[in-house]
C-alpha cells in the first residue's frame, strides 16, 4: 500500500505541472493585465513600459512562466489589481467553498448509493422508477435554478412557518459574528443547508445511475450466486460481496466528477451571494485581474488532483487487485 501511495503521489506532480502550463498559456492569451491602463489615452508610454517591466511582461513567455511558477512554489501568489496579497484572500475564500464542496460530495455519495442500491435490488419496481425519474430530472435541471427555487420559495416558507430565521439564504455566515469557529458553527451550518442540498441533488443524479448499473452487474455475477448458494445471509451477501464490489466503479466516477462539483459550487455560490471562490473568479475574470485568475485556476486544479489522489487510494483500499497489481 505504501509503494502504491508513493507511486500515485509521484504521478500527481507532473499532472499539476502540465496543468499549470496549460492554465498559464490560457490566461496569458485571454487577457492583458494592463488593459485598463492602456485604455486610458493619457497614460504616458513610459509608465506602461515600467509596469510591463515590473510584471515581467516584456520577457518571453517561457521565462515568464518560470518566474511565476518559482514564486508560486515559494508561496508568493502575486498581488491583485488593487494591490492586495492573493494568497490570504484565496485561502479564506477556499475554506468557504470547500465546506460546501466536501459536504455536497459526501451527501451525494450517500444519496447515490442508497438510490442505486434500492433501484438495483428492486429492479423495475415502483421505487426503481421513482429513483430513475428523479435521477433524470436532476440531471436535466440547471443547478442555479434549483438553488434559487429552494432559496426563494422553500426557505422563506420554512422561516415563516417557524416564525424565525432557521435557514439562511444570503452569505456563507452572518458577518462580524466573532467568536471561535465552534461557537459560529451553528450559524455556518444554517447557511450551508440550502446550497449544499441544491448542489448534492444535482450531483447525485448521475452517480446513482452508475451505482445502479454497477450493482446490477455485480448482482448477476457468478460469485454472488455462489455466495447465496453456500448459505450466507442475504445481509452478508449484500454488504460483503455485492456492495463492496459495486462501490469500486463509483469511486472512479466521483474522482472524475470532482471538478464538475467544484464548477457547480461556483454557480451555486452566486445564487446565495457567498463570498467564496465563485465570486472571486467572476470578479477577477471580468475586471480582468490576471494574477488572481491564474492563482485561482492553479489552486483549484491542485485541489482536484488531491481529491483524485484520495479517490485513487480509496480505490486501492476497496480493491486489492489494484494494490498488488
Amino acid at each position: 500500500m505504501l509503494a502504491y501511495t508513493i507511486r500515485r503521489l509521484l504521478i500527481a506532480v507532473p499532472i499539476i505541472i502540465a496543468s499549470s502550463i496549460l492554465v498559464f498559456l490560457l490566461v496569458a492569451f485571454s487577457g492583458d493585465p494592463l488593459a485598463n491602463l492602456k485604455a486610458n489615452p493619457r497614460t504616458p508610454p513610459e509608465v506602461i513600459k515600467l509596469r510591463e517591466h515590473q510584471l515581467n511582461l516584456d520577457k518571453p513567455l517561457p521565462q515568464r512562466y518560470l518566474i511565476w511558477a518559482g514564486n508560486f512554489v515559494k508561496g508568493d501568489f502575486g498581488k491583485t489589481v488593487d494591490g492586495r496579497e492573493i494568497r490570504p484572500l484565496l485561502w479564506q475564500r477556499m475554506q468557504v467553498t470547500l465546506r460546501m464542496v466536501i459536504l455536497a460530495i459526501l451527501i451525494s455519495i450517500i444519496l447515490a448509493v442508497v438510490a442505486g442500491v434500492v433501484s438495483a435490488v428492486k429492479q423495475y419496481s415502483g421505487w426503481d422508477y421513482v429513483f430513475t425519474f428523479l435521477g433524470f430530472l436532476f440531471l436535466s435541471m440547471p443547478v442555479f435554478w434549483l438553488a434559487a427555487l429552494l432559496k426563494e420559495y422553500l426557505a422563506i416558507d420554512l422561516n415563516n412557518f417557524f416564525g424565525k430565521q432557521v435557514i439562511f439564504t444570503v452569505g456563507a455566515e452572518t458577518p462580524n459574528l466573532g467568536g471561535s469557529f465552534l461557537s459560529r458553527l451553528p450559524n455556518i451550518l444554517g447557511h450551508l443547508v440550502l446550497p449544499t442540498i441544491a448542489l448534492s441533488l444535482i450531483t447525485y443524479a448521475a452517480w446513482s445511475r452508475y451505482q445502479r448499473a454497477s450493482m446490477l452487474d455485480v448482482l448477476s455475477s457468478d460469485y454472488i450466486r455462489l455466495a447465496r448458494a453456500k448459505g450466507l445471509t442475504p445481509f452478508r451477501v449484500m454488504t460483503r460481496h455485492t456492495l463492496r464490489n459495486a462501490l469500486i466503479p463509483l469511486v472512479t466516477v466521483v474522482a472524475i466528477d470532482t471538478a464538475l462539483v467544484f464548477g457547480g459550487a461556483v454557480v451555486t455560490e452566486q445564487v446565495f451571494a457567498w463570498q467564496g471562490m465563485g465570486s472571486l473568479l467572476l470578479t477577477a475574470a471580468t475586471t480582468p485581474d490576471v494574477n488572481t485568475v491564474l492563482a485561482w485556476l492553479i489552486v483549484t486544479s491542485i485541489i482536484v488532483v488531491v481529491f483524485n489522489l484520495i479517490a485513487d487510494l480509496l480505490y486501492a483500499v476497496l480493491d486489492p487487485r489494484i494494490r498488488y497489481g
Partner: protein
Amino acid sequence: MAENEPAAAGTRTGADVEERAGAAAEQAAARGPEREFTVAAKTQWQLILRRFLQHRLAIGSLIVFLLVVVVSLVGARLWHYKYEDITPEFSTAPSLKHPMGTDGLGHDGFAQVLRGAQKSVQITLLVALLSTTFGTLLGAYAGYYRGVTDSVLMRFTDLVLTIPAIAILIVVASALNRAGGSWWVIAIVLAALLWTSIARVVRGVFLSLREKEYVEAARALGASDWRIIYRHLLPNATGAVIVNATIIVAVAILSETALSYLGVGVQSPDVSLGSLISAGQQAATTRPWLFYFPGLIIIIIALTINFIGDGLRDAFDPTQRRVRA
C-alpha cells in the same frame, strides 16, 4: 461519464437474430409453406429504427424536443410582441394576452422566453454540431493511428478534467465579451471545451474496431486508410457518436444557461434563458412566472434529450437493456 457507452452498433446480437426469426416466421405464415425459409431482409438501420420506435418515452420526448426547438427557432418571428417591446401592462400574471405574464417594465414574458430559448437553442445546436464533428474526427484519427496523436489527445483530456470547465468558460468568455462577443462566440468557446468527451468515446470504439477481421479484409483488398476510416469504421461507430451527441446537447444547454446566469454568457440587451432566470429571480416572490417559465423550458429541453439518448442507447445496443439508465 461516457466511458461505458455501448460501442457495438455493428455487432449482431441475439435479439437481432430473434427478431429476424420472428419476422421470418410471420412472413412464412402469410405466404405459404413454399416460402418457409425466406428470411425477410432487414438492414441494421431498420432494426435500430424499429427498436427506437418501440421506446415510447423516447418517441414522446423526441416529439416534444423537436416541437420546443422549432418553436424556439421560429416562434419569435410569429409572436405579435417582440422581446424588446414594452407593453402598457406591467407585472401582470400569466393570462391569454400574455401567456407567461409581463415583467416590471412591461416586457411580454412569452416574447422574452421565445427570444431567450432561441439564443440558447441556437448556441446548444451549434455547440453539439461543432464538438461532435471535431471530437469524432479527432477521436477517429487517434484511435486508428494511435501513436503521438493518441497520447497527446488522451493527456490533454486528462488535463481538462483537472480544471472545472465552468471556470475556464468564465475566464475565456469574459475575455471574449470584452472584445465584443456574440452568441456564436459563446458557442465556439463551449464547443472547444466539450469535444473531449466524444473524442474519448470514439477513440475507444476505434481502438477495438480497428482489430476486427473486416478491417483486415479491407486492408488486404487494398483499401486506403481514408476509406477504412470513413467507409468501414465510422459507420460502425455511429451509435456511440449519436448517443454521446445527445449528452453534449444536454451539457451544452446547462452550461450556456449557467454562463448567462452568471452574466458572462449572452450579453444584454439580448437575452438567454439563463439571463432571464437571473432577472426573474430578483422578483421571484412577487412575479414568480418570470422565474418559472425559462427554467421549465431548460428542464424540458435537457430532460427530453436525455430520454432520447436513453432510447437511442437501447436501440443501438439492445444487450445493454438490462442496465438501462
